[in-house]
Every structure is written in C-alpha cells, then in structure tokens.
C-alpha cells in the first residue's frame, strides 16, 4: 500500500513535466530579452515566455488542483485567456511608443505625430 502511495501517478508526472517545460520556456524568453542587441529584436523574445510559459504552468496548476479536488479547474483558464489577450496589446503599444521615440513619426506613413 505504501509503495502504491509513493508511486508517481500520471497526473503528478504530467504536472511536473508541464511545470519544468513552462519554466524552461520562460527562462529562454528572458535570456533572449537579456542577450539580443536591438530593441526591436528584444521585444519579441519575452512574448515566448509570457504566452507559452503561462499556458504550460497554468495547465500544470489546473491538472494538479483538479487531481487534488480542492476547487474547480476553470480559474486558470482566466489567466490563460487574459495573458493571450494582453500580450499582443502590450507588444503593439510598446513598439508604437518606441517608433515614436525613434523619430518614425516624421517619415511618410508614420503615425507617431501628436
């Protein structure tokens, strides 16, 4: 009985794998944020961590808490939907601000004028 209790179940293995995968993807995105040279390259790297890492870690939390039976699993879907929605908005707004600060508003076709 004790060995059965100690043996890792499928949900435990799935939770651990998703946690480490999400944390590794987030670390890769943050290292890309640290190592890239220009701003327009640098702004792309953390979106990998924010979307894919959030999906993986929230799925791990969802699987773990639904296995424990503490609460329903739908809470983490809120975080996933929120992050997927807000990451492109953040990137678009930041790149627009950076283009304006780089003086792209004076070029034809730019839209950074006041």
């Amino acid at each position: 009985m004790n060995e059965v209790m100690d043996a890792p179940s499928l949900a435990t293995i799935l939770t651990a794998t998703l946690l480490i995968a999400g944390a590794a993807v987030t670390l890769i995105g943050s290292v890309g944020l640290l190592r890239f040279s220009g701003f327009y390259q640098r702004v792309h790297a953390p979106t990998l961590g924010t979307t894919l890492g959030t999906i993986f870690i929230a799925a791990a939390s969802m699987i773990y808490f639904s296995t424990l039976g503490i609460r329903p699993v739908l809470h983490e879907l809120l975080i996933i939907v929120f992050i997927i929605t807000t990451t492109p908005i953040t990137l678009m707004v930041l790149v627009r601000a950076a283009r304006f600060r780089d003086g792209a508003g004076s070029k034809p076709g730019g839209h950074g004028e006041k």
Partner: protein
Amino acid sequence: MSTMFSWSITTAQILLSLAMACAAFRILWGPRAQDRVVGFDTLSVNAMLLLLAFGIRSGSALYFESALIVGLLGFVSTVALAKFLLRGEVIE
C-alpha cells in the same frame, strides 16, 4: 507528495527565478526607457508564474488570486508606461 514532484517544483522555481534575474538586469542596464518597460513587463509575468508555482507547492488556492492580480496590474502598468512614453502623460 513524492520526492520527484517536489524536486521538479524546486527546479521550476529556480528556472523562473533566473528568468526574473534576467529581466531585472534588463531593467537595470536597459539603454533606453522602452527596454526598461519591456523588462518590467517580463518581470511581472515571471512573478505571476512564480506565484503559480508557489501555489502548486503549497496546495493552497490563495496564491491564484495574487497571481491574477499581479498579472492584471502588470498589464495595466505596462500600458500606462507605454502611453507615457508615447505622449508624455498618462491621462489626457
């Protein structure tokens, strides 16, 4: 909770802490203001993921609420900072 599971949670927390350190270095050494804003956005999302990992380790549902609040405030403050970079003021 088996030994393998707690070890994997510890590994995930160490990886997320390294990611937060990378974002903090970008905030400290960012050559321009928009680099610091991107670093802050990454730092807030990494803090949210670290809170989710803490919630899995402790088995408590309270960490989820704080993770949601950290993510929401990170998005709002990033958009406010980008608006400040674009216009010079947040509310006009």
